[in-house]
């Protein structure tokens, strides 16, 4: 199984963290992973994005026309990247900012108001953790325990937020269903 994704959003939404955390989870649990950030003359308020490839086998080409999954944390990201998603692919949207009706009809849309959910947990900063957990649950690539293990391990330097991150993972898994 191979899953090619683009994760995109405003700078500051933790988009790169989503990508990297998914890669760490892959490597922690015996899969291959590739993370390719886009860098360049990005504008304030525009989109930051990264390509993430998770696979059971060794990864070949990172540059292909189509992707299996898009994670769009804001509206410009949806507009810019949803054309790349294969028909029948999945688009995860942050429905606190993106309208589900803007998503193409030939893809599966998973709409999760991650900003609102994160706010309820105590900080909008965990919106990205909720989203990556929803992706993990939706693709079936990782169990909740696996994601929790990786997230808590990688964020161990901030013990005061561990409980909030644990809840964020749970919230993501609940809403992916």
């Amino acid at each position, binding site marked *: 199984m191979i899953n090619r994704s683009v994760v995109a959003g405003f700078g500051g939404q933790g988009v790169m963290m989503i990508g990297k955390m998914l890669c760490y989870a892959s490597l922690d649990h015996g899969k291959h992973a590739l993370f390719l950030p886009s860098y360049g003359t990005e504008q304030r308020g525009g989109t930051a994005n990264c390509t993430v490839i998770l696979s059971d086998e060794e990864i*070949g*080409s990172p540059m292909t*026309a189509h992707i299996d999954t898009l994670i769009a944390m804001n509206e410009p990201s949806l507009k810019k990247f949803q054309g790349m998603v294969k028909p029948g692919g999945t688009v995860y949207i942050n429905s606190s900012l993106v309208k589900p009706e803007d998503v193409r009809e030939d893809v599966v849309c998973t709409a999760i108001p991650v900003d609102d959910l994160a706010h309820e947990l105590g900080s909008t900063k965990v919106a990205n953790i909720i989203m990556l957990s929803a992706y993990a649950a939706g693709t079936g690539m990782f169990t909740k325990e696996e994601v929790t293990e990786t997230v808590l391990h990688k964020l161990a330097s901030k013990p005061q937020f561990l409980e909030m991150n644990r809840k964020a993972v749970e919230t993501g898994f609940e809403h992916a269903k």
Partner: protein
Amino acid sequence: MAKQFMKGTEAIAEAAVRGGCRFFAGYPITPQNEIPEYMSRRLPEVGGVFVQGESEVSSVSMLFGAAAVGTRCMTSSSSPGMSLKSEGVSALAAGQLPAVIVNVSRGGPGVGSIQAAQMDYFQVTRAMGHGGHRLIVYAPSTVQEAVDLTYKAFEKADEYQAPMLVCPDGSIGAMMEAVELPPFRDAERKRLTTYASQCINPDKLIISTFHYTAEHSEGFNRLLEEMYEGWKQNEVMVEEYETEDAEVVVCAYGIVGRVAKDAVKQLRAEGIKAGLIRPITLFPFCTKSFEKLDYGKLKGILVAELSIPAQMIEDVELATKGRVPLESLTHSGGRFIITEEVYDRLKAMALGNTKEVK
């Protein structure tokens, strides 16, 4: 040791430290800034020295001094910065000094683009600096290969007492993948022996980039010529994939080599006899790989590179000597060649819907 998930640039820096690098000088430029950043933190931990020079020229010149006193050393830059360093690289070659240069390449000419590209092919394979010196040029296609080739570049720099070049494009530098890091080498380096010593005083180590007599000057050039010819015999690295019975072949290096391999796999799965030649050393070039092709069956070769105009295609022309039509697939300035494009072009070539380029 467990694999680590590392960014290309940082993996190159760590591989250099493990390869014995104890001196680094550089000047910032996108997209390679993580190399000096990593070195500034890492080298002091192993008793090494990091210097941010006031320019590219001063940075590469510091390597001359470091290498002369027996320290393994490295500098890194990106395309426009490499032009500035070229004088110093030529001096390292003339001084018979081992050093590793890393070019995380981007678009050109001029300041060009900060996005990944492969537009320095002529510069790195023909004449990095003046005076006809050459470098072994390593072009990795994965982060693991970037690690392995950087490590190897330090060994070869010592072996040949010459500067070596590691040349990933910006995407390999920015990409994160799992890597297995090599063991630490002893940082001690063997004593240098130079042609200048032989000419002037064999009892002393004399490092010179200048020879007074015509006889010595030509003698030194002959020595370099012999070394470069030896590289062509012994230092060529290439990946040949499914080329034995190939009817269509794609030649691509670095990130594009990896993209092209997936296209070849897809075509093979459909019964189309496609193959890949991926040069790993850009110089010396894998000319012999083209001798092994079956020109009775071969319909064409597609040369895919992130450079407009195409550059590597000239080496493929020299290697194939007009025996087969060549086609070119190019992008640049941050646009990548994708697997589907290579697939479409090779398929059209295999089915005979091909137009000859040039």
